[in-house]
């Protein structure tokens, strides 16, 4: 073999390793999906903190390469850097860390001031179980149906946590679907809220919430954790971290820890979670008929969850005295897309009455939705794991 052949042989081998030689149409489709996510985030400002890492992760995960070459670069190749980072998703320890940050960021005052709003957060979880029934009807097994249905909780970390336990093979599609619909909350919810409420109901003015004492704010995460985790111990990783984060925030003596949990730690985990979830959507795993069903079911779940929150308020108003009636526009906030859905309630309220600020009232069911979806995830895990 002369030197020319030697060079040609090596160049041919190198070509076989490149993305161009290994590209399949699926990779190209997924690359376009990743670019679309990045465009949505940057140009349309749809949940950029999530969609930029996920979108770029999709690009990373869909660079074609020769899997039999043993390069140890793919997210599913044991020992690769991406695989190590992906462990936080597959073993389910990123979501509780995100919940720690959510707890440290969230002010539960609106909920403590008006505890009955918690029930709206509970009612909206019907979206999860409604989607569960539809998923079963389509033909998914109960554990897969449970993992898909949690999209209705509108809570990305919870969806990832539960799907990593119940249906790891569907996790990529479930996570992308959950985050996509969370980004589309401003598009999905307002038409439903208009459809299911009368003009008179939209004009209901709620009494301003009372001031909540520091002691109540401290007691809330402790009692909340004890009560919810005694009922659903399987939700402990999420609920425990959520309430722990909130205690750090409210206790007044751990401000450094609360600051780290709500800023640096959350940012780090969000980056890693988004990137690895995106990278896990390799075309071979993602582009399946199941993914289409998952997106359809996720859409159904969001519609059912938002509507059930609104309907529950309407029902609740039948038994409430006139001065304590709740504006059903805050019913949509029972899904835990914090604070997006609360903001939508506020905007819609202002549209019909420029003096009717619903934001603080909507924050109650919104944060109750976070607790509710974590409890629902715990219930599904308890029944199906």
């Amino acid at each position, binding site marked *: 073999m002369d030197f020319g052949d030697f060079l040609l042989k090596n160049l041919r081998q190198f070509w076989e390793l490149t993305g161009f030689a290994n590209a399949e149409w699926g990779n190209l489709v997924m690359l376009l999906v990743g670019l679309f996510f990045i465009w949505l985030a940057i140009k349309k400002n749809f949940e950029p903190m999530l969609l930029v890492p996920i979108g770029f992760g999709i690009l990373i995960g869909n660079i074609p390469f020769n899997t039999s070459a043993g390069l140890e670069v793919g997210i599913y190749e044991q020992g690769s850097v991406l695989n190590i980072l992906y462990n936080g998703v597959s073993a389910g320890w990123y979501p509780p860390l995100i919940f720690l940050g959510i707890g440290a960021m969230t002010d539960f005052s609106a909920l403590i001031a008006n505890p009955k709003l918690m*029930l709206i957060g509970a009612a909206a979880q019907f979206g999860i179980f409604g989607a569960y029934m539809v998923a079963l009807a389509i033909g998914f097994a109960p554990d897969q149906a449970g993992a898909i249905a949690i999209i209705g909780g509108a809570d990305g970390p919870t969806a990832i946590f539960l799907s990593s336990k119940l249906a790891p093979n569907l996790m990529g599609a479930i996570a992308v679907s959950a985050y996509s619909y969370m980004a589309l909350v401003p598009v999905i919810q307002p038409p439903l809220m208009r459809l299911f409420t009368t003009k008179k109901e939209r004009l209901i003015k709620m009494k301003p919430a009372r001031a909540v004492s520091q002691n109540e704010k401290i007691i809330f995460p402790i009692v909340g954790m004890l009560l919810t985790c005694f009922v659903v111990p399987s939700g402990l990783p999420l609920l425990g971290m959520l309430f722990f984060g909130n205690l750090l925030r409210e206790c007044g003596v751990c401000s450094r820890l609360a600051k780290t949990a709500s800023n640096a730690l959350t940012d780090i985990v969000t980056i890693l979670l988004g990137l690895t979830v995106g990278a896990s959507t390799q075309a071979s795993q993602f582009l399946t008929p199941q993914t289409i069903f998952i997106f359809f079911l996720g859409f159904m779940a969001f519609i059912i969850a938002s509507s059930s929150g609104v309907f529950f308020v309407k029902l609740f108003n039948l038994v409430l005295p006139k001065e304590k009636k709740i504006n059903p526009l805050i019913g949509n906030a029972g899904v835990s897309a914090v604070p997006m859905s609360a903001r939508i309630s506020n905007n819609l309220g202002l549209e019909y009455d420029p003096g009717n600020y619903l934001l603080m009232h909507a924050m109650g069911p919104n944060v109750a939705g976070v607790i509710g979806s974590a409890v629902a995830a715990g219930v599904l895990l308890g029944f199906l794991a």
Partner: protein
Amino acid sequence: MKKRLFLMLVAATAAFASVCAQSRSAIRLNEVMVENTPEGIADEYGAHRAWIEIFNANFAPIEISSIYITNDSTRPTLYPVPLGDVHTRIPKRQHVLFFADGEPNKGTFHTSFTLTPGQDNWIGIYDADGRTLIDEVVVPASLTAGQSWARQADGYGDWALRTGGEEDYITPSSANVIRDTNEKIQDFAERDANGWGMTVMAMCIVFSALLVLCLCFYAISKIGSLITRANKARTQSSGEHAVTARDVEHDTGEEIAAIVMALHEHLDAHDRENTILTINKVKRAYSPWSSKIYGLREIPARPTHH
């Protein structure tokens, strides 16, 4: 000093709790064969000897080196499981097999004692202290060659005879009950095919959890307002002037800002509310080096010639 002692006490308690959590009490004797046959499992030398299966009933790995396995209750430290073998770390819910061949020099998993067919064989596992009995079993004398004495399920349940038939198979180094489906999911798929059962149960649980939390906070706010009212009444009865909303009603924003700044200046203190007034010194140090005037050069004017 007291604080240090307290911290040490807390650390010691945490360490103790951690050790207890990882204790080896979850090690279980799971299946025993006293008289192996040529059809049975062979050791790494190809010999068919009596065996003892140990199961880790924990959901975390357990290191079993330095525990003792014995068939003589008067000599609890008869066979210490040697240190330094990676295989003595049993993964969660997994098994290891010891060959009771009386030849410990063959390897870690060969005990220094044997089991005797035709008589009751007592087997015990002792913790590293050689005193704490972790688990024990008496294998009945009625066992014949090729039969095993096993728990009905891994790690718990009664012991029963296994003859190696279709129904009572012998399972060295594997689960005593072999499952090919998840029973829970199978049950839901069969009995709750449309999901109504799950929906009703789960929604009841979610509602009850949040309802209890809701009632709890109604109660807490009631108690809180009662305490506030009692404190107020006590203050008034003691003749002190309580600060009421009316007192601060006339304070303007400027007055409040002045009070906050004065507190910051003299006490270096702020309250625990979220809105913290941060006062930073704004430096606008002037230097000719950073002055734009000196950074600009005049555009040279082209001399005009007439």
